[in-house]
């Protein structure tokens, strides 16, 4: 996380072209303990892999051995030929129960793996399946196996996309009434159902155990190593925060396509040479512009606002509870001002304009609830020699003379200046009695606005 870094207007010594440079630190962490690949003091690029987990533990097979052998749970361990930690092969007899002359029952291991647990309490044995390396996904011709049409495959699946299947498990079945006529498809490998193709009738089963890697995200220096987990990357940089974003971390060159913060982002501005770049618009991004940006292959779009319906329709993203950042939309979108038609803050636009052509790292991740995360544009200046600015905390208390912007109807988007801050709450049009401020709007009108509906500019 950036520690309270927010770019605000200022003319401190530590500025380049009117924007502030602060020390930005990012913690890059693995979800599980793994291997850290860099050393403290190393110089890293956004794509440098700083930590990885080379192998995630395989699927555990939990087998009710006692029940299968018809013995008491407490006798499980006594019947086992193997002990915890032993390696077993598929079809290898690992337990045997003898009851009288003909009462011999044997249990064969369903998989290659290591015995992880033998429980005398529940009668279960846990075998952890092992994989040496990542194996390619396997395609199964389920339409052929079930003797059905390709588009019918989906309705016969017992396990859906994303579900886990084990080797030899029946994952698709046609026909219920008589076993004789039932057609089934079995999984040739253990894995996760990845894809169902309605045209060919093939089902893809993939090994879920991909390598988990964490990249540096920023160009900078490794400041700190978190053992087995990751690193902290630090770099002097300019940060611009948006208000809402979508899409994952990415990086690319900033390309400003408009001349002023109130110019709309339209599709004709987005040319083929925008591919791989982070494009910056002024106010509203039209539906066609968003579509065009995705088609062209822009890494990111930074603009003032967009319409909710456009985002849902063009990008297929549901906003839900406003927790984003995991969308696979190819193009990361950062809205500086929110939704509807609104021009970008002049200062933010100036900063972005002055950074035109520079390499930036962007992240659309937004979380408005508890511990707000806002989307960000970070432009590193790794070799910046000057004095760094200290992150400024914005004073939320409103004062006479503050420049403000209204953020709710009926003055949504209008700028103004606070001319008085009445102590007593006052009644507004909705008849609610709330704390207000008196604002002189840019067009000369003076009006009372609820304090919660203005933000300091």
């Amino acid at each position, binding site marked *: 996380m950036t520690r309270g870094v927010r770019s605000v207007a200022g003319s401190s010594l530590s500025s380049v072209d009117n924007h502030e440079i602060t020390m930005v630190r990012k913690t890059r962490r693995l979800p599980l303990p793994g291997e850290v690949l860099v050393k403290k003091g190393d110089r890293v690029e956004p794509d440098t892999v700083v930590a990885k987990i080379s192998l995630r533990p395989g699927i555990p097979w939990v087998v009710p051995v006692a029940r299968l052998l018809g013995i008491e749970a407490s006798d499980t361990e006594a019947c086992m030929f193997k002990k915890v930690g032993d390696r077993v092969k598929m079809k290898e007899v690992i337990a045997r129960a003898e009851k009288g002359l003909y009462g011999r029952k044997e249990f064969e291991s369903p998989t290659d793996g290591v015995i992880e647990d033998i429980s005398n309490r529940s009668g279960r044995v846990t075998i952890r399946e092992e994989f040496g390396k990542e194996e390619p996904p396997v395609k199964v011709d389920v339409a052929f196996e079930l003797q059905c049409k390709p588009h019918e495959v989906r309705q016969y699946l017992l396990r859906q996309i994303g579900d886990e299947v084990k080797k030899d498990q029946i994952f698709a079945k046609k026909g219920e009434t008589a076993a004789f006529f039932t057609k089934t498809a079995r999984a040739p490998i253990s894995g996760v159902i990845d894809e169902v193709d309605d045209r060919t009738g093939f089902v893809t089963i993939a090994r879920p155990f991909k390598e988990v890697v964490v990249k540096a995200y920023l160009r900078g220096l490794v400041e700190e190593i978190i053992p087995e987990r990751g690193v902290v990357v630090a770099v002097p940089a300019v940060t611009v925060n948006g208000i809402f974003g979508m899409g994952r971390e990415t990086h690319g060159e900033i390309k400003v396509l408009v001349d002023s913060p109130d110019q709309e982002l339209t599709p004709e501005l987005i040319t083929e040479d925008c591919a791989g770049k982070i494009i910056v618009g002024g106010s509203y991004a039209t539906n066609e512009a968003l579509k065009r940006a995705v088609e062209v292959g822009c890494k990111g779009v930074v603009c003032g606002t967009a319409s909710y319906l456009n985002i849902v329709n063009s990008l297929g993203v549901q906003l839900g509870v406003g927790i984003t950042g995991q969308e696979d939309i190819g193009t990361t979108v950062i809205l500086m001002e929110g939704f509807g038609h609104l021009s970008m803050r002049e200062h933010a636009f100036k900063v972005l304009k002055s950074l035109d052509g520079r390499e930036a790292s962007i992240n659309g991740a937004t979380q408005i609830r508890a511990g707000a995360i806002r989307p960000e544009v970070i432009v590193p200046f790794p070799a910046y020699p000057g004095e760094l600015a200290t992150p400024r905390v914005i004073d939320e208390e409103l004062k006479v003379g503050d420049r403000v912007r209204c953020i709710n*109807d009926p003055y949504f988007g209008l700028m103004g200046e606070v001319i008085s801050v009445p102590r007593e709450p006052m009644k507004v049009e*909705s008849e609610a009695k709330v704390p207000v401020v008196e604002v002189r709007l840019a067009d000369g009108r003076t009006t009372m606005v609820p304090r919660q509906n203005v933000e300091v500019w």
Partner: protein
Amino acid sequence: MAQGAREITSILATDVGSTTTKAILIEKRGDEYRLITRGEMPTTVEAPWENVMVGVRKAIRRVAELEQRPLLDDDGMLIRPKQDNRGVDFYVSTSSAGGGLQMMVAGLVKDISAASAHRAALGAGAVVLDVIAIDDGRSTSEQITRITELRPDIILMSGGVDGGSTTYIAAIAETVVQANPQPRFGATYKLPLVYAGNVDAQDLIQSIAANELDVHLVDNLRPRHDLENLGPAREAIHDLFMNHVMAQAPGYGQLMEWVDVTIMPTPGAVGSLIMLMAEKYHANIVGVDIGGATTDVFSSVEGTFTRTVSANLGMSYSITNVYEEAGFENVRRWIPFELDEEGLCDWVSNKMVRPTTIPQTMERLIIEQALAREALRLSWEHHKSLAKKVEAEQVEGWSTQTKWHRAGGTEIIEMMKLNMVVGSGGVLSHAPRREQAALMIIDSFQPEGITQLAVDSIFMMPHLGVLGSAYPEIAAEVFDKDCLVRLGTCIAPAGKGRMGRKCLTYTIHMPNGEVIKDELNCGAMRRYPLGVGEKAKVELHPIGAFDLGEGKGKPVNAEVEGGLVGIIIDTRGRPIEFPADDRERVAKLAEWIETLNVYPIEMIRKYQEESPIKSRDKGDDKGGKKRGGIFSLFRR
């Protein structure tokens, strides 16, 4: 406790919420306990403060400032007991900061022990991350992967009837242990596991899990198939929340030293207050707390308490989700003028990204309250589907299937039996007109028969809930006098009828001797002022298929209580029916609004003129031409 109550004259209560810390001061004035004042400050659990006590002290200082009497000494410590005009006698607190209490639940059978455990966890005020059961459709390895991913504060495990088999309980316990779940806060303590299953398996659970988890054994929450005993598990969760979970959060150590009774999770405290009230009034009560991110619904129906959380339905952070779940048409139906979908969507999304903004214009207030109706409706539907009761087995059929089905519990909410609905949360408590709150509750809960309506004045139910655990009488007194704002009584016959047909004839004997005799047609509303504390006798005669609790068409005589709104008679049918034609719908809405004085009618007319209803494209009308002739007789 009752003896101590005589000596207590001043009580301070705080609720440490995720965004604000609210403090209230209750004092004995004369013979009665009353709310004196209330102070609110931002919660300081996160950086840069990272100490909850900073916010608690600020909120207390705010109260001290308003009351012009010192509550904290120079070192910032609470002055206790009260001496002259300084300090307080008793201090309690609730907390939902840092995301509240998050739990994972494990049971044997999804619809029996796991369902009971789920209810126990929700009742204790927890957010339930996942419910693991032998028959939940996932393989053991998937369960293990899922448990590993979760970061619960507490695990609740149940399963088996007392004296039953222990093998499967061992299996589920092993699954949990193999997953090696980690606590959310810090790795320095063992994750607590509350075991509330078959008592015979207690030693077994200890032997399986004691090395990895901090095992706490309580009575079985399903000792028999037909018996549910959630109390001990719920109490154990409350104790653990205070002693283990909260102790990890910054600054809570000191808060725990300050309080006189255990800190409760905020929803747990509200729940216990609802239970207390249901007991005191001998009534079936439903309470709802609609917040920015979540909506909690509590019900106490014939002694059975249920709480549910709709984690993604709320009026600011989750408002986009309310819109997405409800859909445009459902929001639009409550609005008495034309609405542009794109504009609405953008406004809703902006409210989500700037959650603290409030509606300034009447138009936006109407839209916000339409969304609130949908959020309440969806939460209430969710609650009704989960509120179940396990009854003593009365097997009518011989098949095991019947028994099995009954063991899952029977749904308990019958709208006709509800006596009171209490609303809480900003959109209801702070609605500019109380009529708005009343209509929002009626529209979303759609009460049937005779139901009292009330709202929480300033959201002090959590404070009173935790106070109730020590001094139930004081909590009940303050709840009645200062917390509960009585809105009045809603009289709504259940049933459906054609608009314009006669639905109800009634006689109201007002307390001033006035007798009102009238009748009402289907699709109408009427309001009669009846003040707070006043009572009126009503004689109601529902017509035809309409029912007021005694059966279809049967008369009902009752005494109803007044409130700030009075008596509301609602003959719109259940579920509420709107005219199919948009112009008629808007006219009907305006009529209801005018009758109840919900919004200024001249404003509504102005909006209707500014944005008239657009004529709908004929192609959309699937029914085509309206059916007349003989079909019209069947159109009810």
